């Protein structure tokens, strides 16, 4: 059981993937996810602000 798992795990990891690279990949997807999440929330807030605070007739 244990023995059979090792090659499986190993095959899932691209062989020469260093620890740093796997961490880097994690940082990449997490980082991009964060960037998109934050900016999507910001977009929604901006849309909401635009709806709530429409420009007055004298503001153009």
């Amino acid at each position: 059981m244990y023995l059979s798992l090792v090659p499986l795990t190993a095959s899932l990891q691209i062989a020469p993937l260093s620890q740093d690279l796997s961490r880097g990949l994690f940082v990449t997807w997490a980082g991009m996810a964060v960037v998109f999440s934050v900016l999507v929330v910001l977009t929604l807030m901006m849309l909401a602000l635009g709806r709530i605070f429409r420009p007055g007739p004298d503001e153009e």
Partner: protein
Amino acid sequence: MPWEELLSGLLHFTPGQGLMMLIGGVLIYLAINKGAEPVLLLPIGLGIILANIPLSGMHEEGGIFWLLKKAGLETEVFPLFIFIGIGAMIDFGSLLERPYTVLLGAAAQFGIFGTMLLAIVVGFPLNEAAAIGIIGSADGPTSIYVASILAPSRLGAVAVAAYSYMALVPIIQPPIMRLLTTKAERKIRMPTATTSVSRTTRIMFPIVAVVVTGLLVPKATPLIGMLMFGNLLRESGVVTRLAHTAENELVNIVTILLGITVGSTMTAATFLRADTILIFVLGIVAFSLGTATGVVFGKVMCYLSGRRVNPLIGAAGISAFPMSARVVQKVGLQADPHNHLLMHAVGANTAGQIASVVAGGALLALMAGIL
């Protein structure tokens, strides 16, 4: 013998220091004769020359460069104060009129992370790889802020790369933009905005941006906080004397000191390493990658919107404010002399500014968790 003490400067002068002085001279030349971001590269250039004079004592404890580095860079005071001034300069109106352009700013930040991965692959340790990646933020203060936390010894190279490539944006970006788009796409016209933005929205935006970004990415709070502080001074309209000082005297004084201090970190010992060249190569990759992912994301938006978005404006998402927006305008005009993309590109451009800060904060937070 005191006499020797006087000549000791010459005796201790190394070829490496001479080479560094040459590099400083080249930066000054580029700043003056090629107009390459002179506000930073000129002081950096002279800072490098000064830093490589042997036995000046300026780097020793109590010396002026030691002091400026400790008081301005290690505390992050210099980039943060400059962000107050930049915030007071930026008009987020174009972004607020076109909230969707925010996403282009997000996409272009892949330049940061992709370059970090590449830097890992070529052998840089994780912290240095992240500092190199941040060149892709295409934003000076963000690069300095992040690099001086993650890899202080690489600060000089990262800062010089960031500012140099910002000046080279008109050369780096157009081929990539043309390669990734069809002429038909580049010809897509975008309507001038019909909605205008109320003063209240403009005032609320910096506050909302601080709260949203701060709560989601706490480590980005100092940067986004100072940027939006400056913007609130500007948009409030009630403290014009503060806003004026922030974007003029404050930013000028700090820039004078920041430039020479960044330059002063570039001694032969820290800078003249084979892998410094790699940093500059990776820096171009960062700008190119950011441009590419921005344009590709623009194509996705183009497709999803039924060809109502010109993918070129994605290139402005890397920030490099305001050069990349002008590049977009120019490439657009080449495809169709009546196609004015500037205001849309400025939206993506300012979005890229915010996205860079968010990416920088995310990078710092994720690295703090790992390292």
